[in-house]
């Protein structure tokens, strides 16, 4: 009908309609559809979110705005003007598109951009990792190689300074317990997580109680499908069952590890009275309670047993049996909901129960931990590129240590309870032109030391071009003193670290390059008299230290050869005067230079992935009573070449992976340090034993099967 009238009307009767289509917070939408409903008159938005078109239609029409994944908007227009300008804000419908910005080259000052992300398959296929989350993290820049200890030592920090968070909740005991000089490993299977963000410093105000770094883990939302999994390894076996319905799922896993059969075939260098044995169970459940509401539940329980024969440092030639018994229970429940007004709420509760019973010949030490955390965080995109996040958490920490032995045959118990409430507020701001900033403030109160601390956390990023950005960060970090010292002196104050970080990064297609320089200043570190450990009066917070260094990271994917690789280099200069140190010196867990090369190649014809990782670390200091200088001796350098092979196949129509790895292929002798006897020999020299790996080479053979 319209067609004929169009000819009768004069040419002057056209209307120009233009405007801009954006999201609620102002981010532009590219490719949005703007049309007069029922007609062909319309346009789509360009990279500035702008649209423009002319129409000869007259009268009242409906202008329809639409965009994939967003709610449509209809606006009544009267086409009697010559010009109509209409800007529209569309509301997101699909929660999967939540973190999307559709113009090329967006960037943020967030942890996600500054940290390094590893996917579960990256972790499991890293040869030196042996399937351990923390093993894979050790190949990243800033992480020290401390071969006799499986935990994270980041940028001059001790392992207790790096904390693990699962779905925002602090995990008190992320590592399995182990006897001294035997590396521990992570309790959690990397496949539980779809996001593994490792921040080696300057992290968000959302997290506290970690002076060095935060490992932020996000568990999977829903499994793909119901399945059964079976794994058989040279060191144990696992069984898993996952069931998925429309809005609910649960998963049950049981792991058993026993190194006894393995040690009878490949003899270890150390003497074991009981080869490590572990039983572990895991239950996870998910329930979608509404369109945008999800409840996640996880509970894990494990029992660890081992017994090893150590040299008795009171008398050369004598040994003492050390037995370890550990029971651990961890529970974590979180609730996430996105409300209609676009507020996102996350609430969580977690509980840890852990008991370590260490038996050293006549000496017994039982450590028991009961800890709980409640957390709530609200966040929202406010307007024009401003995000706001705030929340609080409360930690209850109850620790008791019971000691009995020759010195105290009746036993003595030391214990404490601590409460740590905290509040934080943080905002991410996209400033005009090319700046983005993150400004945060965290306040924590520690009941035991009666201290209230405010930590500012600031981060500023500048976009140099489409693929690179420069950023600087500053933050204050506080942490309660370790349990083993707090039990002697409850009033020990919070330890503190200040971080200054400068970072440049380049990311384009498959290539990532990062170089980061940092300076950490430590204050209020715990000091005590090494000869009088039990004397509470010698404990104070007068320790100090610093760490300064550069981390370089390069990651790439040579698609032509199906080769993925990354290279990390770290240089660090760090000294402390803390614990029982006599002067300021470089701590024993630090290597001034660390190099890590990881390469993985997929050969399609063989359906196999070959992996290689090489780690180098320069010598570490060790305490030598024969020397007049404190911590002035160095061990030799550390070298470790690991290889692995993963072969994908089918057994009875079910997806199977056959895995084999060898660590320290070259058989390098790596000495991590020395333990010295307490009294000198007849020549006045203190004798020593080397701290070495349990085995020169470690072989792992495994079969993973998934049955649908």
């Amino acid at each position, binding site marked *: 009908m319209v067609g004929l009238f169009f000819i009768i009307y004069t040419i002057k009767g056209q209307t120009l309609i233009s405007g801009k289509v954006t999201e609620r917070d102002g981010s532009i939408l590219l490719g*949005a559809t703007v049309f007069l409903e029922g007609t062909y008159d319309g346009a789509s938005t360009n990279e500035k979110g702008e649209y423009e078109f002319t129409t000869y239609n007259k009268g009242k029409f409906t202008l329809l705005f639409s965009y994939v994944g967003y709610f449509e908007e209809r606006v009544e227009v009267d086409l009697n003007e010559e010009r109509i300008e209409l800007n529209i804000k569309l509301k997101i419908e699909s929660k*999967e598109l939540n973190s999307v910005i559709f113009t090329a080259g967006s960037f943020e000052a967030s942890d996600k951009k500054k940290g390094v992300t590893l996917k579960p398959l990256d972790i499991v296929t890293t040869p030196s990792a042996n399937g351990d989350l923390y093993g894979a993290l050790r190949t990243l820049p800033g992480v020290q190689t401390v071969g006799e200890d499986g935990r994270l030592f980041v940028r001059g920090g001790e392992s207790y300074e790096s904390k693990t968070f699962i779905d925002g909740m602090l995990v008190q005991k992320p590592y399995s317990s182990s006897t001294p000089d035997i590396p521990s490993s992570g309790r959690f299977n990397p496949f539980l997580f779809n996001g593994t963000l490792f921040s080696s410093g300057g992290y968000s105000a959302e997290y506290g109680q970690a002076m060095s770094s935060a490992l932020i883990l996000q568990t999977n939302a829903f499994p793909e499908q119901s399945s059964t999994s079976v794994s058989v390894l040279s060191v144990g076996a696992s069984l898993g069952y996952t069931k998925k319905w429309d809005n609910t799922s649960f998963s049950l896993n049981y792991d058993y590890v026993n190194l006894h059969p393995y040690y009878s075939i490949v003899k270890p260098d150390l003497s074991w009275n009981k080869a490590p044995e572990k039983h572990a169970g895991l239950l996870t459940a998910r329930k979608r309670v509404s369109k945008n509401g999800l409840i996640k539940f996880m509970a894990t329980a494990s029992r660890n047993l081992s017994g090893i024969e150590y040299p008795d440092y009171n008398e050369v030639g004598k040994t003492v049996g050390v037995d370890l018994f550990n029971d651990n229970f961890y529970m974590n429940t979180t609730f996430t909901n996105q409300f209609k007004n676009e507020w996102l709420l996350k609430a969580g509760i977690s509980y840890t129960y852990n008991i370590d019973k260490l038996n050293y010949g006549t000496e017994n030490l039982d450590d028991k931990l009961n800890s709980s955390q409640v957390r709530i965080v609200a966040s929202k995109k406010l307007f024009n590129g401003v995000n706001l996040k705030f929340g609080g958490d409360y930690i209850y920490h109850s620790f008791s240590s019971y000691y009995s032995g020759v010195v105290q045959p009746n036993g003595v118990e030391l214990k404490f309870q601590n409460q740590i409430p905290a509040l934080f507020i943080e905002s991410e701001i996209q400033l005009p032109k090319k700046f983005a900033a993150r400004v945060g403030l965290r306040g924590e109160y520690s009941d035991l030391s009666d201290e209230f601390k405010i930590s500012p956390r600031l981060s500023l990023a500048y976009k140099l071009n489409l693929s690179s950005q420069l950023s600087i960060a500053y933050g204050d970090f506080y942490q309660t003193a370790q349990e083993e010292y707090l039990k002697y002196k409850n009033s020990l104050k919070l330890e503190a670290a200040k971080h200054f970080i400068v970072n440049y990064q380049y990311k384009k297609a498959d290539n990532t390059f990062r170089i980061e320089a940092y300076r950490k200043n430590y204050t209020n570190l715990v000091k005590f008299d090494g000869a009088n450990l039990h004397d509470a009066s010698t404990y104070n917070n007068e320790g100090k230290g610093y760490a300064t260094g550069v981390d370089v990271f390069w990651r790439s994917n040579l698609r032509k050869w199906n080769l993925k690789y990354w290279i990390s280099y770290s240089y660090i200069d760090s000294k402390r005067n803390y614990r029982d140190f006599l002067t300021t010196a470089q701590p024993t867990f630090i290597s001034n230079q660390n190099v890590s090369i990881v390469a993985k190649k997929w050969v399609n014809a063989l*359906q196999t992935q070959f992996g290689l990782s090489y780690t180098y670390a320069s010598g570490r200091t060790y305490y030598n009573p024969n020397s007049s200088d404190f911590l002035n001796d160095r061990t030799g350098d550390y070298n470790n070449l690991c290889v692995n092979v993963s072969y994908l*196949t089918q057994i009875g129509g079910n997806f199977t992976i056959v895995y084999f790895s060898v660590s320290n292929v070259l058989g390098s002798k790596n000495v991590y340090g020395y333990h010295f006897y307490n009294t000198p020999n007849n020549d006045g020299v203190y004798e020593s034993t080397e701290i070495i790996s349990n085995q020169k080479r470690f072989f792992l053979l495994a079969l993973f099967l998934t049955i649908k």
Partner: protein
Amino acid sequence: MRIVILTFVASLLYLSVSAQNEKYLESMKTNIEQYSNANDVNTFQMLSGKFEGIARVESENWIPAYYSIQSLLEAAIKEEDLDQKDLILDKVQILLDKYSEKFPKETEIMVLQAYSYQIRMSIDNMKTMIYGPKATKLLQNAVELNPKNPRCQYLLGMNIYYTPKMFGGGAEKALEHLQKAKELYESVVIDIPFYPEWGEEDNSELLKSCESALAQ
């Protein structure tokens, strides 16, 4: 008089209907031309928006919807940043879900769904376990629904060719599909304007590789 008025009204109606049809042909022609000349992510995204507009007017016609999906797929292919690629594919999936529900028997849309799975696999080849079988099943379904669609046979052949032998794939099994696709490309003629025609050259090339792989 009445007859004149009736004829006049009839001719008005005819004019408006054919005018509408002309508008469709004109719009599609312009946009498809732009589509063939486009070669960057932003242009493809804009084109997808334009085709969406046409799809709204021609709500019973699957072809504008088809191009809206395909433009966004091209945007995903052109996008170099892997994270952004995945995000664009998430958008494509929303369109695919909407239009495969609206046009459940349209095999060309199934072909695009299978194609999006392939792009997902190229981003992360560990995802092959998830997307590979999904794509094969979908395409086998599509072949049954419309045995005359060369693109179904071509993509099915491509999928099987790149699936390793032990999982039921390989050059031998792929051959018959690629050959069938070639036959169909050469023989089938569809009269509908703007009906998708792509894939003949790529199919011939893949067929050659397949044949030479088997000759060894």
